[in-house]
């Protein structure tokens, strides 16, 4: 067994506020049209041939509608739903207003995504602004008054705990997690609620009858590594509520995950490019999962032999950190970028629009989405690699890459 991962220490004295407007797109639409209040609403591009659900109201969620579900299926679950087309510009504008409202209250405000999530680091502002919960309540009051949204809020010693706290009180409410009670707070929380614990992890945990964060607290780092290998450190920290990641203010670069792949020989062979791309995706996926984030967008940059550089990006249906899903989005970006016959010298993969991955609670529901099959596949591969080593099995599509086996 290799050395056990060393857990990082929590940064003392931090106070992080998480504001989350539940079902943000629906909340924005309801702010503009009060008639939509208290009736099921689905946001989906109805005109598209294979429209999928972009967002839905709590009423539609209760009826079984989920993000990413085909619209025809969603409408079967919720026949009286009012369907509206998505208006990303409108939601981005609303997010900017929300962000502006929070700015006076904290030196660092992080705009996580355009889905109604904000983190505020109010550490050390007590003398000026008072207690963190008072700040959170004031922002919520202003947002409610000005925009008609009623954000869920939490105060916690780090982003991970703040995020879990808002997840457990959604769609309405608040939660204060005190510094020092991280483990006690997380103990009864289902592992699916913890950001960055992905479906393959959960499937594996269920095989060991580990369902709540508290079930994993008895496992030390070495034991976790024996089962979860390179995910062990991440899981060890997550179930203990350790997350030293900073709240990034707007003047700091948005977080991205980059992976470079220089070709040994310049190539224009599709199979080789695809193989290299998948290797990059596996690396990026691993890094995203380690950081408990998911990518909303995947970009590729191709450097051609003649010095020309082309960059293109594609959006995923939902933010993900699962390799096959990332690969699909990356292939879309490649299709946009690779329009020349000239050989390629260098490939760069960029995952951005990072956010906390959606809660994995749908695992418990009776669903049969494509993702499920992929996750089973990833789990199976992980299990084989866990037993026989990293190089025991690999995707055929990576066979042509320059990786050494």
């Amino acid at each position, binding site marked *: 067994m290799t050395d056990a991962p060393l857990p990082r220490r929590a940064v003392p004295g931090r106070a992080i506020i998480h504001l989350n407007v539940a079902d943000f797109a629906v909340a924005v639409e309801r702010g503009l049209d009060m008639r939509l209040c208290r009736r099921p609403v689905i946001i989906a591009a109805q005109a598209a041939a294979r429209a999928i659900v972009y967002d839905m109201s709590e009423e539609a969620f209760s009826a079984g509608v989920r993000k990413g579900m085909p619209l025809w299926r969603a409408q079967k679950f919720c026949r009286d739903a009012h369907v509206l087309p998505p208006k990303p510009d409108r939601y981005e504008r609303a997010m900017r207003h929300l962000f502006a409202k929070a700015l006076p209250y904290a030196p660092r405000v992080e705009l996580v995504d355009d889905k109604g999530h904000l983190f505020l680091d109010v550490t050390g502002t*007590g003398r000026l602004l008072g207690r963190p919960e008072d700040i959170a309540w004031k922002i919520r009051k202003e947002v409610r008054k000005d925009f008609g949204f009623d954000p869920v809020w939490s105060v916690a010693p780090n982003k991970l705990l703040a995020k879990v706290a808002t997840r457990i009180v959604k769609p309405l409410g608040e939660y204060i997690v005190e510094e020092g009670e991280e483990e006690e707070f997380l103990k009864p929380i289902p592992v699916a609620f913890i950001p960055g614990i992905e479906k393959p992890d959960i499937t594996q945990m269920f095989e060991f009858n580990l369902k709540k964060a508290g079930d994993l607290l008895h496992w030390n780092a070495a034991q976790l590594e024996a089962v979860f290998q390179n995910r062990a450190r991440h899981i060890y920290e997550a179930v203990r509520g350790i997350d030293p990641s900073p709240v990034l203010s707007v003047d700091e670069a948005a977080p991205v995950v980059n992976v470079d792949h220089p070709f040994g020989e310049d190539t224009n062979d599709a199979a080789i490019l695809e193989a290299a791309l998948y290797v990059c995706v596996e690396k990026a996926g691993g890094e995203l999962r380690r950081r408990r984030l998911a990518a909303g967008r995947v970009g590729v940059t191709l450097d051609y032999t003649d010095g020309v550089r082309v960059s293109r990006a594609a959006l995923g249906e939902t933010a993900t950190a699962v390799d096959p899903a990332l690969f699909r989005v990356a292939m879309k970006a490649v299709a946009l970028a690779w329009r020349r016959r000239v050989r390629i010298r260098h490939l760069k993969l960029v995952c951005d629009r990072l956010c906390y991955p959606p809660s994995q609670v749908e695992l418990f529901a009776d669903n049969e989405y494509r993702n499920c099959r992929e996750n089973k596949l990833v789990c199976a591969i992980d299990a084989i690699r866990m037993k026989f080593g990293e190089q025991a099995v690999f995707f055929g599509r990576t066979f042509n890459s320059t990786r050494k086996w």
Partner: protein
Amino acid sequence: MQYPQIKQGAILVGTSGYSYADWMEYGFYPAGTKSAKMLPLYAEHFRITELNNTWYQMPKADATARRLALVPEKFLFTVKLTRSLTHEVEPEFWARRAAEFRAGIAPLQQAGRLLAVLMQLPPSFTRTLENRRYLGNLMAALEGVPLAVEFRHKSWADDHVFAELEKRRVTLVAVDEPPLPNLFPPLDVVTNPALFYVRFHGRNSGGWHSGNMQKQFDYDYAAAELEEWIEKRIGLMARKSAVGVLFFNNHVRAQAPNNALLMMHLLRQRGLETG
């Protein structure tokens, strides 16, 4: 309601809330104390606290039970009623919120460690028919829970109100606050023979309406001001009630615990029992 764990005639002193980061800076807690470790340290000085972050968040039974486990068995609590029942009342949902609140504080009540639930009503809550009805309904919804009501508007300073509180065995909270127009005046009226309850908010007239708690509750009581309270009101109230509680809400710069300790000293000097 009687409180068997407290000596008859005792006056317990504490602070409104105990988890303030700047109390470390001003020496009440050692530097680096985590929030969750503050309550046991606080309990080394005081026998009671007023949980006030329950105003911001609906209390949850598991979190309440965790708090209970942190302090000695004789330590008592009062709990501030959540804002969705006092300041942000939604007619459709308040009854459900009241039930949630009761469930959230149940561990304290079941353990016999809940002295009172503090219903602090905002200055905008004036004595109208509608508000009187709401208050009556709210008290009915919280029946069985020991209640203390703090008014912020002077319209409630009326004998009819006091008589009704007396009938319901609800404690009227006496307040010390700046002498500003329309605020509820400092009184020594006792409406519940089981308990009297005083809150010291400080007398920072300039900061009171600032909207910033750091200014509103920034005040350091002089010994003479506290002595005046004891002489004029507390002694009298103690004679009419079995138990009394005094809470300091001037939390800025750890003035609340310092003033609370001073108050305990002054009470003992006069031979009054502080629990």
